[in-house]
Every structure is written in structure tokens, then in C-alpha cells.
């Protein structure tokens, strides 16, 4: 058995022990209850009250035991993740690499990696707490109330198209950058091609400039948003007529 497997078995055994403890604690509590019943039968109120206190302590023990069992289960999952390399806290290198390439750009790391162990709700929702909850995308939201859902979506996409464009630019920038960097035509302008029957022919490329792409994805999206809003208007009008 591997060392990690041994650890897994150990943690599982610990959990079993803690689970067994539940029965023992329950038996103890039963004994306390019996004694308490006896005491109130006799009429010894102070003894009964003291035993009730003991019982309360034992109830706290039970809740602490449940928590401990849950923690051991968590530890077991984490060891399993360490074995299989998947799941919670798995040793993945993919997001680390992305994070190194885009230290402040893309939002690809899971929240517990980016924000530490106890992120706030605002951090988790990706909202800037200084902006305030009712600005930007919620701005003027009531004016869309009478529109249908599709038109509302299209309208809000128009309002936030700047954000969309920024995000898509950031997303597609690496691809276009690497396209530009890797633009490497042969020095003598000859591209050898492979024919089946013919002898090898050559193709002379037209005079080329370096590919100068102005990051079309974001602009394309803006066009798509405009088309969607236009379609929404059309649908609204058509519905109004019919």
C-alpha cells in the first residue's frame, strides 16, 4: 500500500473511532437521564438540576463530536484529492500557468486561490465594493420593465457592451498576439507544396505586410449586440402590430 493510501486508511479509521464514540456518548447520556429520572422520582430537585447540567454538557459533546467527524471526512476527501490529483485543492498547474501569464488580466483562478480562505461576498461576486450595488448594470433598470425578456437582455447588453468588449479583448488578445509573433513566412517567399503526380511546384506568395489585426473579436461582439437589439425592436414592433 502506498504511503498516501496508508494515510487515507488512517484517517478513515480515525473517523470510524469518532463515529463509535457517538454510541458511547449516547450511553453515558442515557445513564445521566436515568439518574435524573430517579432523582426527580425521589424529589431531589437540586440533584436533578445538576444532572440536567451534566446532560447539557454532554449534548455539547455530541455536537462537537459531529463537527469533528465532519472535519475528518473533509481530511479524507483532501487526502483522496492528493492521491488522484483531482477535486478540492488538487495540485493543478493549469491555472497557475494562466495566472502567471495574465497576472492582472483574466479571472481564471478559483476564488479560494485568488481571495484566500475567507473571501467576502462582494469579492466572490466579482464586484467592486466602491461602485455600490445599484450602479452600472442596474442603472436605469426600471425603464426596461415593460420590455420582453429578450429585448431586456439585448438592451442591457447594449448598455454594458463596453464591459463585454473589454473582456473579450482581454480574452482574445493572447491569440492575436501569438499570431503576430509567430508570423514567420519563408525568407525567399517560396512555399513548397506537395503534389501527388506532378513534380513539386512552388507558389509565390503575394507581397506581404505583417499581419496587423486590430483585435476583431470585441468589435464583432459589439456588432452582434447591435444586431440583437435591432432584432428585439423588430420583434416588439411585430408583436405590437399583430
Amino acid at each position, binding site marked *: 500500500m502506498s*504511503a*498516501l493510501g*496508508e*494515510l487515507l486508511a*488512517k*484517517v478513515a*479509521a*480515525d473517523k470510524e*473511532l*469518532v463515529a463509535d*464514540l457517538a454510541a*458511547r*456518548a449516547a*450511553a*453515558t447520556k442515557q*445513564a*445521566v437521564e*436515568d*439518574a435524573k429520572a*430517579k432523582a426527580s422520582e425521589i424529589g*431531589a430537585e*437540586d*440533584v436533578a438540576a*445538576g*444532572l440536567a*447540567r*451534566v446532560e447539557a*454538557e*454532554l449534548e*455539547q*459533546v455530541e455536537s*462537537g*463530536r459531529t*463537527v*469533528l467527524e465532519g*472535519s*475528518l471526512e*473533509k*481530511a479524507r476527501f*483532501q*487526502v483522496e*484529492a*492528493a492521491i488522484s*490529483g483531482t*477535486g*478540492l*485543492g*488538487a*495540485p493543478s498547474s493549469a491555472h*497557475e500557468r494562466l495566472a502567471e501569464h495574465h497576472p492582472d488580466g483574466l479571472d481564471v483562478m478559483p476564488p479560494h*486561490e485568488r481571495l484566500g480562505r475567507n473571501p467576502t461576498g462582494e469579492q466572490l461576486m466579482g464586484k467592486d465594493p466602491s461602485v455600490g450595488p445599484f450602479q452600472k448594470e442596474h442603472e436605469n433598470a426600471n425603464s426596461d420593465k415593460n420590455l420582453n425578456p429578450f429585448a431586456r437582455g439585448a438592451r442591457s447588453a447594449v448598455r454594458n457592451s463596453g464591459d463585454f468588449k473589454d473582456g473579450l479583448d482581454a480574452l482574445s488578445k493572447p491569440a492575436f498576439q501569438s499570431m503576430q509573433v509567430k508570423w514567420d513566412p519563408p525568407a525567399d517567399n517560396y512555399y513548397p507544396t506537395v503534389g501527388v503526380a506532378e513534380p513539386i511546384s512552388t507558389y509565390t506568395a503575394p507581397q506581404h505586410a505583417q499581419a496587423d489585426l486590430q483585435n476583431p473579436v470585441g468589435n464583432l461582439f459589439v456588432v452582434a449586440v447591435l444586431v440583437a437589439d435591432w432584432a428585439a425592436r423588430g420583434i416588439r414592433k411585430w408583436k405590437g402590430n399583430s
Partner: protein
Amino acid sequence: MSLIDDVLTSIEADKQAVEEIAAQIAGSKEHAEGLLGQFQALGVKVEGHALSFARQTLEECVAQCAALGRQFEEAKVAAEAVKGGGSKA
């Protein structure tokens, strides 16, 4: 009052069991630490590894186990107080 004595011995036994479990969990934690040391010797990056999270969780488990033992201790004290009061009355 033998019923309360029963309760006391029962609580005592439970406390013993909890201490044994605490020792076991501490052993598991040491095992995990040893494995992490081996990982480090291999050159694997340890922080952020699932096993280091597991070690942290096991550390929490040890603390929770100690708290459980203290809770039993308090229950025992309460039961002894009952016994003392009972014998006086």
C-alpha cells in the same frame, strides 16, 4: 449514589476514548507531515497541494478533539458537583 457513580465512570471512560482518538489523529497528522516532507524532498511544490490542506484539516481535528476532551472534563466536574451536593443534602 451508585447511579451518579455510574455516570462518572462512564464519562471518565468516554474521556479516555477521546484522548486515545486524539492521539490517533495526531499520529495521522504526523504521517501527513512526513509525507509532505517527502514531497518537498522530491521537489514537488507543497503549498497549495491537497495534502497540505489535509494536514491543516487534521490539525483542526486535533484541536476539536482536545475541545471534546475538555467538554467531557466539564461534564465530569458538573457530575461531581451533583455528587458532592447529594451527599451533603
